[in-house]
């Protein structure tokens, strides 16, 4: 149905796509596999009309296809659900869907259409609700319905399951399979190998802008797929199983009111962190993770309950007071929260290392010491950058993340809180970050990892709990949990029974 022939695209300094060719057939679920930076997004933007290729062509049902804008692509029958949703939180579902359509019907007809499509595909949604009030999984449904209303021949989905609970993933797959049986093709972008083997007919693997191979996932082992994706075997982090030490941090019945209009407030959260132990907190985005982080880092204070560090009550301690006693943290947002994008790496050390590394005396900054510390982080954590005077914004995601986490680890925390340690980071960097966390834990630190990546948590955490709607589930030993149990802890699927799809 769609032939991709020799597509190439170069940006200044980077070859995004180099001579990529493969075919997508009618009624086929075709996976596009590759890690961050492999060129998947560029290729897909070309198909959707957001970007023009430098060379090569596309043939849609034998006819040359050269979309200049997304609406041209849509008219030709291509629909896309992006990883970062294009939704307007303050507007209703119906208005959002209407904005994404080329010839939207009036609001009343639209409401009826939305209801009927959502029912027949097992994705119930109320057209009148404000998008800001919906969970992430529900928001994805809005995006999908928006696409379905245009009867697409090809549906492109970019990393759809990173925001879903296991139960919601099953329901999504049922929907996709129904579409396939109706003759719709699906281009499924992901790096989750198990899912691809379960769902997809064919897989094309990209690496560094080039196509590595097109194969049948069913017949290829996960190991082989991973190797093709990354280009070499990656050493899996080694986990030593030491018994946990004493309780370093006791969090008792805390709460936190969300600062953002559409955020989720935290209620009655209780847990302990023990020396040498990693507690993993899973959960789909928007269930209170940011609020939990803020309350632990000291950016916000809990109005109830208490937080004790080694017996000291630190509930009302601000971030620097917590740093002084050895509680460090690394937030989710690398640029803007963990680091200032337009400041150099040297300046960025001042954000958290000011006290522990004695970078300031009598109010005056010791720039020499700051540079030395920044250089140390860069060296120890293999941060690829020309130098510490480069701005944080000039680093790639993986390298910046290594710097940000390395900055904290080199300060020897006794308690370390990290939110989404490897989000958007390439596989090699992700592996080294996870290993760094494991090593830190083995050296006696108590670590809390908040992550949406269940595979990651299963790999490195000793204990596991899930955040759901601002509340924390029971804490269980990770090794004893099944995927289904985890899914249920995460809240199952919001108001979805397995409908007759």
């Amino acid at each position: 149905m769609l032939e991709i022939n020799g597509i190439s695209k170069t940006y200044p300094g980077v070859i995004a796509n180099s001579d990529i060719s493969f075919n997508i057939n009618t009624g086929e679920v075709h996976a596009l596999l590759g890690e961050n930076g492999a060129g998947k997004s560029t290729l897909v933007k070309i198909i959707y009309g957001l970007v023009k290729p430098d060379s090569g062509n596309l043939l849609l049902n034998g006819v040359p296809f050269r979309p200049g804008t997304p609406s041209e692509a849509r008219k030709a029958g291509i629909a896309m659900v992006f990883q970062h949703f294009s939704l307007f939180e303050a507007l209703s579902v119906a208005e959002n869907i209407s904005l994404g359509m080329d010839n939207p019907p009036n609001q009343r007809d639209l409401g009826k259409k939305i209801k009927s499509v959502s029912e027949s595909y097992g994705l119930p949604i109320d057209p009148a609700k404000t998008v800001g009030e919906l969970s992430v999984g529900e928001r994805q449904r809005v995006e999908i319905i928006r696409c379905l209303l245009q009867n697409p021949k090809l549906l492109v989905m970019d990393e759809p399951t990173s925001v879903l609970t296991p139960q919601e993933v099953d329901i999504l797959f049922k929907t996709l399979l129904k579409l396939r049986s109706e003759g719709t093709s699906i281009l499924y972008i992901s790096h989750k190998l198990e899912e691809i083997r379960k769902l997809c007919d064919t897989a094309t693997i990209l690496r560094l802008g080039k196509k590595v191979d097109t194969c049948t996932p069913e017949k290829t082992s996960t190991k082989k797929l991973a190797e093709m994706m990354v280009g070499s075997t990656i050493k899996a982090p080694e986990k030593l199983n030491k018994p946990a030490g004493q309780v370093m941090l006791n969090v008792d019945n805390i709460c936190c009111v969300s600062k953002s209009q559409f955020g989720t407030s935290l209620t009655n959260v209780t847990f302990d962190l023990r020396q040498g132990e990693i507690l993993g907190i899973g959960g789909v985005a928007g269930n209170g993770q940011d609020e939990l982080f803020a309350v632990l880092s000291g950016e916000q204070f809990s109005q109830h309950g208490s937080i004790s560090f080694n017996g000291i009550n630190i509930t009302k301690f601000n971030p620097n007071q917590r740093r002084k006693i050895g509680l460090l943290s690394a937030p989710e947002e690398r640029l803007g929260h963990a680091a200032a994008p337009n400041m150099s790496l040297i300046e960025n050390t001042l954000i958290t290392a000011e006290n522990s590394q004695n970078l300031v005396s009598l109010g005056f900054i010791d720039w020499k010491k700051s540079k030395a510390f920044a250089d140390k982080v860069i060296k120890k954590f293999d941060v690829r950058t020309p130098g510490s005077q480069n701005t944080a914004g000039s680093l790639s995601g993986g390298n910046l993340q290594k710097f940000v986490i390395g900055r904290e680890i080199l300060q020897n925390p006794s308690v370390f809180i990290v939110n989404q340690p490897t989000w958007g980071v390439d596989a090699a960097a992700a592996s080294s970050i996870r290993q760094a966390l494991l090593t830190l834990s083995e050296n006696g630190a108590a670590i809390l990892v908040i992550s949406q990546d269940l595979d990651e948590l299963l790999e490195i955490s000793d204990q596991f709990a899930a955040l759901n709607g601002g509340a924390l589930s029971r804490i269980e030993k990770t090794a004893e949990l099944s995927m289904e149990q985890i899914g249920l802890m995460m809240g199952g699927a919001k108001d979805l029974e397995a409908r007759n799809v």
Partner: protein
Amino acid sequence: MDFSSINPALLIASLMVSATPILLAAIGEAVVEKSGVLNLGVEGMMIVGAVVGFIVAVNTDTPLLGFVCAAIISGIFSIIFGILTQYLKSNQVATGLGLTLVGLGLSALLGRPYEGMKSPTLKALEIPFFSDIPVLGKMLFSHDLMIYFSIFLVTLVWWFLKYTHAGMVLRAVGENHDAAHALGYKVVRVRMLAIMFGGATSGLGGAYISLARVPQWTEGMTAGAGWIALAIVVFASWRPWRVLFGAYIFGGVTVLQLNLQAAGASIPVEYLSMSPYLITIVVLVIISSRGNQGAPASLGRPFHASS
């Protein structure tokens, strides 16, 4: 202190006259801010409109033409702001302030030869039957064209934002410009149009001051009306009917304190003249303590088209 010299019907009537320039500027700025842009140049655009309207009206002896030219010229003037902020990505606060300062200077320059002259002013429209109702007639139905137009404009904006597709696109651009761009909407174009609309209405508002409220030209005669309009947009939570409400309240306070001054109130003149500004501050405080809800999420944030 002679309260009887204050006539309530006249008070309401003059309230509407006083409020109209601010209303015109504010409703335009509300549209601009709804699209996500903060234009602090309202004062500059208003005074440019005031001087242009005055000059044209005096030279052609047709106030209506003055209004039309004021709207057009101020609209063009606002394009400078639009180009700087939307195409050259300059800081919106600094550029808006620059616009105000340039506007003040430009208008003083252009208006020099016209200082102190009187202009032909708008006649009050006598609506048959309605204008003859005792009390209410004088209060509500004997106004000039612009006052009715301003109310009509508010209705138009309200209907546009709530019920048209284009209005929804504008709201979407103000909420999340990245998503709007990803969906293929021309963010910059929408915002430029909004900015020009805001410029035109500010020009109308300014022209009303020089042609109707005080039919005369003096340097700097807007006296902060543009800033009040900005405050009213916040006060109104960016909702058109509340903008009307806010403008009328402010007009009311201004007129009331002038009347009190004239009636020989024992409060010193200076305190009375600062009251509208103090009340604006109080209103801003009340609104923000309740949480600034309703602000378009992309307001003031620079838009960098990615890809």
